[in-house]
C-alpha cells in the first residue's frame, strides 16, 4: 500500500488585515495510490481550500499549519510550503467552472502548448501530439484544437479541462466541483468519464463536490466535510448505507434522484461562518439529534475498519 496523500492536522487559512480566517481546521487524511476520494459538503465548508492545498494553488496570502505529504515529498510543514516540481508534474487541478477557466483569447491548442511548455519546456509540435492523445482519451477529436473556448459547449469545455490535466501525466488529479456548472444530463457522463480515466490510467483522484448522489458512483472513499473539519470518513458503502454522522444522513436525504419521488428534506440553517470560533460540535446548532454532551468537542470514533465519525452519538446512530 502506497500512500499518495497524507495530511496530519492540516490547517489552512487566509491572512486578513488583522486576523487569520481558518478555512480548513485540522484535517487528518490518508489517500492510497490509485483510489478515488470524494470530499463532500456544503459551500463554505473548506472543501475547495483543502483541494487547493493539495494541488498547490493556494494564494500567497494563505497561512498553513500541520503537515501535508504527497508520496515522499513534504509540501506543507507548518507555515513552510514547497510545491516545486509537484504542480502539474505530480498533481493536476481540474478547476470548477469550465466557462471561466479557459482563456477566451487562446485556442485550445495554445492552452495545451502553454501548459506543457511551462512545465516540461516542450515545443509546439510535441505539444500538439500530446494534446491530440489527451483529447482522444476524453472522446474529443483533433479538430477542436483550432477552436476558441466560446465555440465549445459546456460539456466539451469540461472535457478539455480534463484533457489538459491528463496531458502532463500527473499521478494525482484533483477535480473541484466537476459537475456543478454543467447540465444535469452531462453530469453523469462527465462523472463516468472521470471514473473511467481514473481506472484505466490508475490515477489517484480527489473529487470535490456537494452532489453525493452523482459522484458516489465513482468513488472508493468519501470524506464528509463540515466547518473546516472532516466529520465522517469511510468507504462508499459505509457512508451511503451506514452513515454515522447526522450531517451525512441529511446530505443523503436532500439529494433528489430522478424517478424516485421520496419526500424532499432540507438542512435547516447554514454552515457556521468560518471566522467564528466554535466550541463543541460544529453541527450542534443544526443537528436534530443534539444532546447535552454535544456542547463539548467530539472525539473521533472508529466505527469500523477505516470508517470514522466525529459525532458523540455515532455508535448509537439514532438516525438509522
Amino acid at each position, binding site marked *: 500500500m502506497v500512500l499518495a496523500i497524507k495530511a496530519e492536522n492540516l490547517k489552512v487559512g487566509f491572512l486578513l488585515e488583522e486576523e487569520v480566517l481558518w478555512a480548513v481546521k485540522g484535517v487528518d487524511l490518508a489517500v492510497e495510490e490509485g483510489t478515488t476520494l470524494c470530499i463532500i459538503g456544503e459551500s463554505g465548508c473548506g472543501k475547495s481550500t483543502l483541494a487547493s492545498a493539495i494541488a498547490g494553488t493556494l494564494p500567497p496570502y494563505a497561512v498553513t499549519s500541520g503537515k501535508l505529504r504527497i508520496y515522499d515529498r513534504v509540501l506543507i510543514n507548518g507555515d513552510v510550503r514547497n510545491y516545486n516540481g509537484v504542480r502539474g508534474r505530480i498533481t493536476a487541478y481540474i478547476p470548477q467552472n469550465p466557462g471561466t477557466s479557459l482563456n477566451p483569447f487562446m485556442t485550445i491548442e495554445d492552452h495545451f502548448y502553454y501548459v506543457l511548455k511551462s512545465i516540461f519546456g516542450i515545443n509546439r509540435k510535441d505539444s500538439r501530439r500530446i494534446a491530440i492523445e489527451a483529447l482522444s482519451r476524453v472522446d474529443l477529436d483533433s479538430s477542436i484544437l483550432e477552436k476558441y473556448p466560446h465555440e465549445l459547449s459546456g460539456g466539451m469545455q469540461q472535457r478539455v479541462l480534463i484533457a489538459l490535466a491528463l496531458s502532463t501525466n500527473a499521478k494525482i488529479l484533483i477535480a473541484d466541483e466537476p459537475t456543478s456548472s454543467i447540465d444535469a444530463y452531462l453530469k453523469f457522463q462527465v462523472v463516468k468519464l472521470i471514473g473511467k480515466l481514473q481506472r484505466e490510467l490508475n490515477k489517484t483522484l480527489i473529487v470535490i463536490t456537494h452532489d453525493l448522489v452523482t459522484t458516489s458512483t465513482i468513488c472508493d472513499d468519501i470524506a464528509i466535510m463540515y466547518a473546516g473539519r472532516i466529520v465522517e470518513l469511510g468507504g462508499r458503502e459505509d457512508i*451511503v448505507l451506514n452513515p454515522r454522522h447526522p450531517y451525512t444522513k441529511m446530505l443523503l436525504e*436532500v439529494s433528489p434522484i430522478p424517478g424516485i419521488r421520496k419526500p424532499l428534506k432540507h438542512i435547516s440553517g447554514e454552515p457556521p461562518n468560518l471566522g467564528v470560533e466554535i466550541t463543541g460540535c460544529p453541527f450542534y446548532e443544526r443537528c436534530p439529534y443534539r444532546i447535552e454532551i454535544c456542547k463539548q468537542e467530539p472525539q473521533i470514533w472508529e466505527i469500523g475498519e477505516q470508517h470514522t465519525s466525529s459525532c458523540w452519538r455515532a455508535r448509537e446512530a439514532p438516525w438509522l
Partner: protein
Amino acid sequence: MAVNRGKYIIELENVIAGYIVAPPKLRSIFKTKQIVLRDINFRVGTSERVAIVGRSGSGKSTLLKVILGILKPFSGRVLIHGHDIYRLPWRRRVELLRRIGYVPQDPFKSLNPVLKVKSILKEPLEACGFKGNVDEKIRLIVKLVGLPENVVDMYPEELSGGMRQRVLIARALISEPEVLILDEPTSALDVSIQAQVVNLINEIYERLKLSIITVTHDLAIAQYVADRVVVIDNGRIVEEGSLAEILNNPRSNFMKTVISSYPKLHKLE
C-alpha cells in the same frame, strides 16, 4: 380589459422564433434569421404545473422570452387568455402580461444591491398602479414565502441564497399573477437548500392554485414541481407527458440518451 377565461391561460400555436443575426461590421446588409424554436405548440391550463426540460441551448430560455412578451416570434401566435399578445397595442399587451409572474435564474445577480427588500417588493406594485395598503401587502407576501418580517429592512447582500430566492418569488407573486414562471429555480443553490425552494413552490401551489411553469435541466427537480413535463431538444418539443411515462417509455433519442446515462441508483434508495 375583459378577458376570455377559457381552458388555457397560455397557448402557443405553431410558433417559430429566434434571433436576427449579422456578421460584425456588416450588420445592416447581411441580416439573417437564426431560428431557435421550430413549430412549437404548447398550452398551459388553469392550475396546471408544467416543467420545461432540455439541455443548455435547446431553446428553453427563448421559449420563455416569447411567453413573457420580450421576443416577437417570426411566425405563429402567442395567446394569453385567447388574445394574441404580439398583435395587441402595447398597453393592452402589458395588462395581459401582468398575469404572469417571473422568477429569474440567479438569485445572486437578480436583486438590486442598493435597494432594501421593501423597495424591491414595492416596485411591481407601483408598476401595477396598486392603490391599497402597500405595507400590509408586503407583510402578507413576506409571510407567504416564509421570510421573517424584519427582512424588509435588509439589503440583498445580507440574505442567504435561499432567502434571496424567496424574495424573488415574493416579488413575482406580489402582483397576484395567474401564472408563475420559474427559470432554473434551484440551479444556483446549494444542494442542502434546494429542497427548501422546491417545497416552497409546492406550498404556494397548494395555497394559491396558480399555474406554474418551471424551466429546469434537472429531471430530479422536475418530478417534484410538475405534473406534466415538456422536453425540448434542438428547438422542438420532442416529448410530453408525466415524468414516470417519460422515464419508463422514452420516445425521443434525446431522452433515451439521458436516461441511459443515469447511474444505477438502487443502492441509494
